């Protein structure tokens, strides 16, 4: 079920998210230098690269945590480079974290309800009064959340605090929380990191379903090359903060620069 062949529902040229030549320096360290990224609507784009290549920094710039020193991030024609993370979320970019960032004191259900925070409106007064507006809104959004709970098969965990869940399940709940906000673009930072083969396959299935059934554009950071090559429409390779290759999984695999970044030069040393 490789999606590597060009799919009909991915519209080349219609780029939902565009990153134009962003750079980010921390003191003397250049984390990302002049990286560009085009994410077609409805596609799965993977970012790969050795450790420290700047993958997560790039994601942080898209979601607004870092302000790039140069360059632009554009979502559906709108420049979001300088926006706060909470505003970026409201515009339809959701993400998950490399080391899970769930609200540990809350139940699975409340975590997912929080995912819909930007879609809800209740203010302080209607929350305090509750009966009436806030309750109606809570119930309406609960229905949407239940649909995601069903989709991710979390039914029996609804009322469990997330701190009590196993690692793989927590990753799934985090995906659910990101989905709950009905994002246009979903950024996944190593969703399969630390999982066993079965869990990886489950998660890959979910990512594909999110993309194909729900029509969400996915930007994925992942180290498991098997998964990346299987599900990506396009792969971007970073090395030491620079983009060194872009293309379909097949193109990237054949690219000598990529092979060099991962394995080192065949002669004359220069290790990774």
């Amino acid at each position, binding site marked *: 079920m490789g999606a590597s062949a060009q799919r009909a529902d991915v519209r080349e040229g219609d780029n939902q998210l565009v990153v134009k030549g962003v750079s980010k320096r921390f003191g003397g360290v250049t984390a990302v230098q002049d990286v560009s990224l085009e994410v077609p609507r409805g596609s799965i784009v993977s970012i790969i690269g050795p450790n420290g290549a700047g993958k997560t920094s790039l994601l942080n710039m898209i979601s607004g945590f870092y302000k790039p020193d140069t360059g632009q991030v554009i979502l559906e024609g709108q420049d979001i480079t300088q926006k706060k993370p909470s505003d970026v979320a409201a515009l339809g970019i*959701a993400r998950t974290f490399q080391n899970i*960032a769930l609200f540990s004191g809350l139940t699975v259900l409340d975590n997912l309800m929080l995912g819909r925070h930007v879609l809800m409106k209740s203010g*302080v007064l209607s*929350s305090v009064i509750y009966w009436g507006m806030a309750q109606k809104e809570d119930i309406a959004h609960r229905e949407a959340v239940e649909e995601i709970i069903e989709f991710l098969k979390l039914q029996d965990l609804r009322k469990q605090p997330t701190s009590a869940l196993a690692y793989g399940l927590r990753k799934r709940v985090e995906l659910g929380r990101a989905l709950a906000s009905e994002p246009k673009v979903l950024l996944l930072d190593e969703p399969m990191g630390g999982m066993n083969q079965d869990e990886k396959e489950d998660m890959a299935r979910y990512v594909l379903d999110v993309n194909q059934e729900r029509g969400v554009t996915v930007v994925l950071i992942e180290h498991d090359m098997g998964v990346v090559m299987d599900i990506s429409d396009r792969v971007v390779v970073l090395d030491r903060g620079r983009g060194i290759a872009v293309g379909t999984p097949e193109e990237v695999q054949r690219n000598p620069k990529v092979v060099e970044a991962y394995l080192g030069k065949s002669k004359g040393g220069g290790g990774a």
Partner: protein
Amino acid sequence: MFHRESGIFKTTYSADMALYPLPIAKWTVAILALIFVVIVPLTVHEYYLSILNLIFIAVVGALGLNILVGYTGQISIGHAAFMSVGAYTAANLAVRLDLPFWITLPAGGLMAAAIGVVVGMPSLRIKGLYLAIATLAGQLIIEWTINHVPAISGGAQASIQVERPSLFGVSFNTQGHLYFFLLFFAVLAIVATLNLVRSRIGRAFVAVRDQDIAAEIIGIDIYRYKLLAFAISSFYAGVCGVLYTYYFGIANYEQFQLIVSIDYLAMIIIGGLGSVLGSILGAVFVTLLPIVIRILMENVGSLFFTTAEMANVISGLRLGVFGGLIIFFLIVEPEGLNRLWRNIRSYFRVWPFSY
């Protein structure tokens, strides 16, 4: 209370999200209401009513502080000062403009909320201990200001006498009358808090507490919500200050010194952070503690101390027991009385077949 879920099936989301999800709990609430509205005021002696009244006021303040500290994870050592802001606002309005309590009470709350937001502003940049020191500064500045500006404090004594509140020509003059007045606001505060913490705003508060980075990524403007928590929490504190003023018939800055801020922090630590029931239990516990110590010492202590020594011993013992208890709870049961209560409940939930 001790109810069991077996055999109860919920068929709607609203039933699942209800404050009292089990039918029997509605009866518990009804029985509690009967006890507090009918039986207690008819049977309990005036002196004990006055203690209950103090507890009701403390419940309002503790709930407010718990919204900020327990739910949102921001600390404040300035809550007594916010109470004094509410108290003096209400006292000035009541005395100078002769306004009734249903105007002075929200006015005191709103003024405290405004000041609370200002004191809470450093929370954008600092957390934990540093925020504690910033709010401590707020406490001292407000205390000093009230004490030194006669326009606020009403002259050299820094205290303002206030008439007892009245409604439809009935003045709440006795402890029995005040009992209903304060019970009403305590219940209002409890219900409002229960609603707040289970709705969108309350969830966002907990999100800010648990994971501020993740909170931002799902679209919560954390600075806005921190200030909102300060505002709501200070509003409760302001109302609490107004209630103290009407209860004592006087607004006096000595009721709102630093030690009171610590008392309220003790309430929510002993009761349980991030819990409505915990706030109530903590308020009951901390209000009763000095009274129990005093009664105990008056009966037992007279064997060891002369009457002259007694006053010193009691006040010293109070502080000692208090400090000891806070340390005890922080070590043994950091989740407070609320957790003890839940442990007891979950033991009996499956009793006697607890395997």
